[in-house]
């Protein structure tokens, strides 16, 4: 008795978006990366192929982050003192993209220098995050955008309270933006509309629906992502952007990952647990539609990368 397997055919699809520009494309990247382009839910190959793999970005910082977990400090070691070295090591660890996160202590000069040194050290496409304070973000990101015109960086993080300056400079200098909203389908749509209304081409927006780590709200992020992806496939143009999420940041601020002592014995081995925390958070988000996951530990990167390899093969 042959069974008819029900297949969904969707009217909408996700935009394919390219990050980074090679010399032929007006930049200096060794290659560019394309994400998105899906016409069905994640990895259901019996309905449609996966046109572009999800990509792992590794987060590095312009200054050594003393408040990171000792496990991260130990694994990146000396390289954390120099963003260029760190970028090289991240590329070796298997990153497909780099995130350079700036800090409030950076002057404009420091920040531009850090971005340039990372671009010189690695051929990977680059995402640059401001320190997360509106004024400082704008102060640093504008000169960076100008100094790297044509590289097709992703600039972030745009939020509803501060997006205009970042979007304007990204538009003027041929970059992309990361649009973040706090775990809500309508807020995501709204910010995407505001950014598009400024004239930003729709193939230069990555949406960041925000997520929580395992045990710290992942169920909200997970379902918001599923709903955003369903809305996009149903044809809602303002949700048809690839999604970027930050499981590394979220997982490594939990006590489960950060701390090795004074925790219940039932949590098991610290390092293995911490890496599981980051890896499993990332995988759950990839299953729910993430196109770019930003991670921190090389071992999580390796595991997630292998899993992506297994998921994208029909």
């Amino acid at each position: 008795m042959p069974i008819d397997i029900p297949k969904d055919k969707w009217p909408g699809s996700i935009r394919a978006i390219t990050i980074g520009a090679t010399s032929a494309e007006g930049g200096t990247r060794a290659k560019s990366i394309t994400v998105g382009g899906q016409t069905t839910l994640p990895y259901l190959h019996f309905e449609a192929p996966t046109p572009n793999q999800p990509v792992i970005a590794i987060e590095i910082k312009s200054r050594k982050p003393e408040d990171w977990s000792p496990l991260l400090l130990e694994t990146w070691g000396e390289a954390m003192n120099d963003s260029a070295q760190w970028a090289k090591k991240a590329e070796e660890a298997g990153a497909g993209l780099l995130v350079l996160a700036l800090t409030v202590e950076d002057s404009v000069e420091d920040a531009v220098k850090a971005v340039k040194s990372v671009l010189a050290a690695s051929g990977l496409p680059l995402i640059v995050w401001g320190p997360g304070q509106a004024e400082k973000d704008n102060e640093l990101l504008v000169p960076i955008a100008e100094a790297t015109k044509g590289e097709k960086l992703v600039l972030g993080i745009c939020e509803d309270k501060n997006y205009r300056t970042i979007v304007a400079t990204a538009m003027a200098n041929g970059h992309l933006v990361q649009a973040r909203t706090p775990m809500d389908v309508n807020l995501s749509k709204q910010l995407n509309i505001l950014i598009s209304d400024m004239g930003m081409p729709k193939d230069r927006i990555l949406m960041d629906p925000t997520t929580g780590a395992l045990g710290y709200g992942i169920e909200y992020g997970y379902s918001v992502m599923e709903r955003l992806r369903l809305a996009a496939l149903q044809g809602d143009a303002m949700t048809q952007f690839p999604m970027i999420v930050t499981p590394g940041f979220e997982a490594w601020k939990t006590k489960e990952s950060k701390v090795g002592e004074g925790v219940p014995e039932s949590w098991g081995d610290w390092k293995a647990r911490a890496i599981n925390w980051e890896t499993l958070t990332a995988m759950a988000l990839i299953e729910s539609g993430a196109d770019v996951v930003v991670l921190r530990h090389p071992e999580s990167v390796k595991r997630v990368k292998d899993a992506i390899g297994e998921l994208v093969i029909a």
Partner: protein
Amino acid sequence: MALSGIQIYKLLPQTNCKECSFPTCLAFAMKLAAKQVELGACPYVSDESKKQLAESAAPPIRLVALKSNGTEVKAGNEVCLFRHEKTFYNKPGLFIRVKASDPDLAQKVATADAYKVNYVGMDFSIDGFAVLADADLGTAIKTIRTATKRPLILMGDPASLQPGLLACSGETPLLYAADASNADAMADLAKTHKAALIVKADSPDALAELTQKIQAKGVEDLVLDASATSLSAALTRNTQLRRLALKNMRALGYPIIAFPCDAKDEGIAAAQAIAKYAGFVVLSEFKPELLYPLLVLRENIYTDPQKPIQVQPGIYEINAPKPESPVLVTTNFSITYFAVANEVEGSGLPAWLVVTDAEGMSVLTAWAAGKFDAERIAKAIKGFNVADKVSKKRIILPGHVAVLSGEVEEELPGWEVRVGPREAVDLPAFMKQVLN
């Protein structure tokens, strides 16, 4: 499929005799459709109608319960593909695989059995053991039963399973597995010993064919093993099976079992199985550093998305606060609470955290909805007798509600009101730099 009131009415006697205490059969049918009465209230329903009504009321995915002495693990009864459509109901059971031949069997089982981990006030543990019959199963089960009461999955061929089943009579274990080569023998075993049975095949077609055959022999509690060997195959297969079941294909309306124990990356395979439709998950060994995140993931995925999780309003002690430690105020939305508690805990700084009843909303949402205002904050401070615990009457409000500080001062005479950062992540720095 659930029947409508009219469809049910057609199956009733239509005599309007009122014995069910409704004026007409139609009125009774409407109540039945709304699940507000039991069919038993009508003494005159024919057997044929009863059967049809029972079938229509059956859930699209059969509830399969594994039982041992007093404990039970259930899977099935799911009604949706995405948790936001309704919710996922029965958390997949996590089973640890052990070998009958293992010389340390009793001790390994006892260790895993005793495992308990606390997450947000709830205690989690494993659900049972999957025993591989690579030596006499009867002896192994006697050993296992000295160390655990949890339900069992028994893995072997019909001949090796037999002694195991005798050793756990009175229980409902799950047998692995009936395939095309041994379906009859496995079905007989399951029927004789009242066990549940895993059916294994590599396509929905083949699975449906087997389940129908086995069902015809009178075994009802079945579990599907789609024998997927990669993440992508498992995702495809489980999605297809769930969809077909929800479309009321009875032959596939059973829970699914996953074996991450055989996957390249066990943690990742188990995480996918939990998120994507498995009802039972078999792990290779007892590893707390993997079990804990999996138990938390399972809890998160199976949380009802319609209900915001709330924490109990009250005063929480973080890092053993002293009378001079600061008093932080937040809402009882669990994510807000955990964000704050986590940051402060991670910083090592002692604090009192006052969780106000904001009906489970985050700071901004609650403020906008009028559920987090000066009055409620003052009520919490007074109601939880905060003044008795501290020497310094000073509270820190979340930065997002800085506008409330004047009103809070009015409501709480004698208290100093300070405005903290907007985001929890900035609390440690604020506490270090501003408060000291």
